[in-house]
């Protein structure tokens, strides 16, 4: 039976267990003189039965469904005659897809070697068996769990405590999922990165100045060794992010200052949400705007001035990205500016300073650490942004600081290397994971630093 069908079945069983345990607890309580002689309300006995029924069964189901395919595939591959065993992971996946296509009936078995058709029937049989066994096991565990809970409906047992402890543990697991996600990111990306460094030395990756991930398709091909130097990617990323920050920091900061110090309440309450809309627009929309409107515009403008601009210029991507992160800078700076105590403002104004002098000489220096923290957060956003650069920046890894040239970024390369089918043991594919690791580390460091600065600053005035 399919996992998708088993899931509702387990839930139905849990509801049945709930109902049965509820009735049972009332039946137990009746001769004692009502439910107030039970240690817990009937609801808790029933809820405990439902939990006992569902949780173990769901765990077994999840584990089984997660590893079912891998295990079956391993057995099928092992069943092949030894001389046809695949030599590489790519070959293995090719054979496996052939086998599963035969099993699904979409490939005519007549033209295939016998060991493939044999494996296909084995695959089918295994899948059948696994499906049946899974269904039986899951239902059995659910029923056993419910039965156990049923026997434990007794007046002296405090079911409420059990239920509450279980719930608490479930809540804890949910909170710990964040740690699990981080661990998942670190381990999965880290392992692939290690495999990449087996092929390409880490020094070449970090300090190499040319990037062209095309590796040879065949061993006898010459001249397409592939170069994995990350420096042109990083300069490209930094160039675009720097342009973005050059737009976002002045615009965001000045509008935050105006809104918090000068604007009337009405203006503030209308302009602020409109500004925040900029942060809510999907990045693919910005990418579309950058690629189809801003980039051609800049190219034409440069042509009028007599300069030559690429149609995928870093400037276009940077400008649009800058607009996107304006609300980050402005809302974060708004927070820190309004956190500066009013007394400092009053003191400065009382001495005869104008509002702009108060702002520039008193409030801004006091808020500076927080503002820098906000800018760092915005920078980490800019570095990790993908869609705008995928659509508006180029693919060629040029080592240049000219904003009218086309550059590529770390995120663009990750996306292009991993879109479409790929085999998982080529340096080309693995390099995307190494880039991901680098991106993760850099943004993480920026964030940690920014949060530290912001927090330290906040403590000063609290």
């Amino acid at each position, binding site marked *: 039976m399919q996992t*998708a069908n088993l899931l509702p079945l387990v839930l139905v069983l849990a509801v049945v267990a709930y109902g049965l345990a509820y009735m049972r607890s009332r039946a137990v309580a009746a001769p004692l003189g009502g439910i107030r002689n039970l240690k817990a309300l009937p609801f808790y006995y029933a809820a405990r039965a439902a939990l006992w029924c569902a949780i173990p069964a769901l765990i077994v189901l999840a584990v089984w469904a997660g590893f079912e395919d891998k295990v079956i595939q391993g057995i099928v591959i092992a069943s092949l005659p030894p001389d046809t065993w695949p030599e590489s992971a790519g070959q293995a996946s090719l054979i496996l897809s052939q086998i599963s296509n035969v099993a699904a009936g979409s490939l005519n078995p007549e033209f295939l070697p016998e060991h493939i058709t044999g494996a296909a029937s084995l695959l089918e049989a295994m899948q059948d068996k696994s499906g049946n066994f899974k269904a039986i096991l899951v239902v059995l565990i659910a029923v056993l769990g419910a039965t156990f809970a049923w026997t434990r409906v007794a007046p002296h047992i405090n079911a409420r405590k059990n239920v509450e402890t279980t*719930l*608490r543990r479930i*809540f*804890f697991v*949910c*909170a710990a*999922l*964040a*740690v699990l*996600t*981080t661990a*998942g*990111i670190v381990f*999965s*990306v880290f392992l*692939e990165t290690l495999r990449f460094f087996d092929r390409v030395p880490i020094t070449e990756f970090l300090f190499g100045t040319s990037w062209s991930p095309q590796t040879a398709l065949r061993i006898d091909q010459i001249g397409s060794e592939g170069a994995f130097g990350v420096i042109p990617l990083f300069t490209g990323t930094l160039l675009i992010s720097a342009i973005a920050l050059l737009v976002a920091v002045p615009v965001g*900061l*000045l*509008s935050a200052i*105006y809104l918090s110090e*000068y604007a009337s309440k009405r203006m503030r309450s209308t*302009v602020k949400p409109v*500004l925040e*809309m*900029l942060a*809510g*627009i*999907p*990045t*693919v*929309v910005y*990418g*579309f705007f950058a690629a*189809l409107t801003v980039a051609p515009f800049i190219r034409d403008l440069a042509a009028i001035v007599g300069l030559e601009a690429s149609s995928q210029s870093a400037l276009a991507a940077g400008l649009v990205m800058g*607009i996107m992160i304006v609300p980050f800078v*402005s809302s974060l700076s708004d927070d820190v500016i309004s956190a500066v105590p009013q007394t400092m403002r009053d003191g400065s104004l009382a001495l005869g300073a*104008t*509002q*702009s*002098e108060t702002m520039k000489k008193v409030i801004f220096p006091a808020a500076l650490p927080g503002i820098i923290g906000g800018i760092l957060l915005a920078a*980490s956003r800019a570095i*990790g*942004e*993908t*869609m705008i650069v*995928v*659509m508006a920046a180029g693919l060629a890894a040029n080592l240049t600081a000219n904003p009218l040239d086309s550059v590529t970024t770390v*995120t663009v390369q990750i*996306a292009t290397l*991993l*879109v479409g089918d790929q085999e998982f043991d080529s340096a080309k594919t693995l390099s*995307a994971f190494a880039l*991901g690791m680098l991106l*993760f580390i850099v*943004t*993480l460091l920026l*964030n*940690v630093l920014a*949060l530290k600065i912001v927090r330290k600053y906040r403590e000063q005035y609290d």
Partner: protein
Amino acid sequence: MTDQRSQAEIVRKSLKRRYRTERRFRLYGILAIFIALASLFILFADIISKGHTGFVKTTITLDVTLDSGMMYLDDPTDLDQWSSADFKAPIIAALQAQVPQAASAAEKRELGRFLGTFADSEIRDLLTKNPELLNTTQTIEFPTHDRVSVYVKHADNPQYSIKLSEQQQLWVDELLQKGIIDTSFNDVLFSRGDSREPANAGVLGAIVGSLLTMLVTLAISFPVGIAAAVYLEEFAPQNKLTDFIEVNINNLAAVPSIIFGLLGLAVFINLFGMPRSVPVVGGLVLALMTLPTIIISSRAAIKSVPPSIREAAEGVGASKMQVVLHHVVPLAMPGMLTGSIIGMAQALGETAPLLLIGMVAFIVDVPDGLFSSATVLPVQIYLWASSSEQGFVELASAAIMVLLTFMIIMNALAIWLRKRLERRW
């Protein structure tokens, strides 16, 4: 005394300059706000001006005589005749009847180029469903080819290049005057999946794909996010583990979205062997991505419930769990819902991680389940925007308008919920 006067003098003299600086400073602020608002306005104006034509389709309506001799087909139910049948011939004949001056074979071929690539399959489908229509005359509406619709819609727009010869342009003008070629609301956009041909491409497949993906995301991230927030706010002991979890959540909120795509690729697809391009995997990845947002906003909502509520509940003998589940969570629910809707809106617009788990495939069929290949609205926009065919640009902008409409609705819902339900203590 004189000293003081001279100081006052200095101040008075400098006042003019200082006020000027003050005015300039204010002006900078206004300018900054103006730039931000103007870019938002330009962005919307650009998308609307590019995309409004995407809601219009160009069609040719013809009285087609389904002549069996012309099609080399005498029995539509006989599948063997299909491969050799010419379904296009009657359409061209009907078109030629409207443009009598195009008589030569070459000119007829030119006329045939007005039709969309799938015009003949429309006749074929019609005859499959209704074999009795053979040798009758039917009024049928065909989508025009991209070059005709570009000419009809964008003849005076320099950004489009017209790919019709002068002769063809004259014919199209004539057909337009006769009302044979006409424009109407593009219902195809909302009733079909993707296609290689702009005239046959729609966003329905992408919308359904987005809905399925969001369903998975919501089903996972909402309960898990709330449970995590409840644990951290109400139950978590003050220890290193709790601190570690909190730091993790805050950092995850700032991890670039494409990294979640790498995680999905490495864990769900490679490790667990889940299929590519399906809403389940997309939904899982987006759920992990939105989880921190939901946890953080739910914690804020729980924090805003005053302690007096908890104390009162505890005072009448409720257990800690009862206090939380019966009182705190229901009171915090509006805030939690608001945060979740905003998180879902973010997930709806997310593209990058879905590229990595294969949701960029070219998929014609409207997905019919959580495990069928699908694409989502933002990815569809990306695909169309990077297509070389001119007709897809306006479709991409039209799809952007659809996406933005969804997002505006979700955000409006969040604001409405907050205004309507949130209690100030």
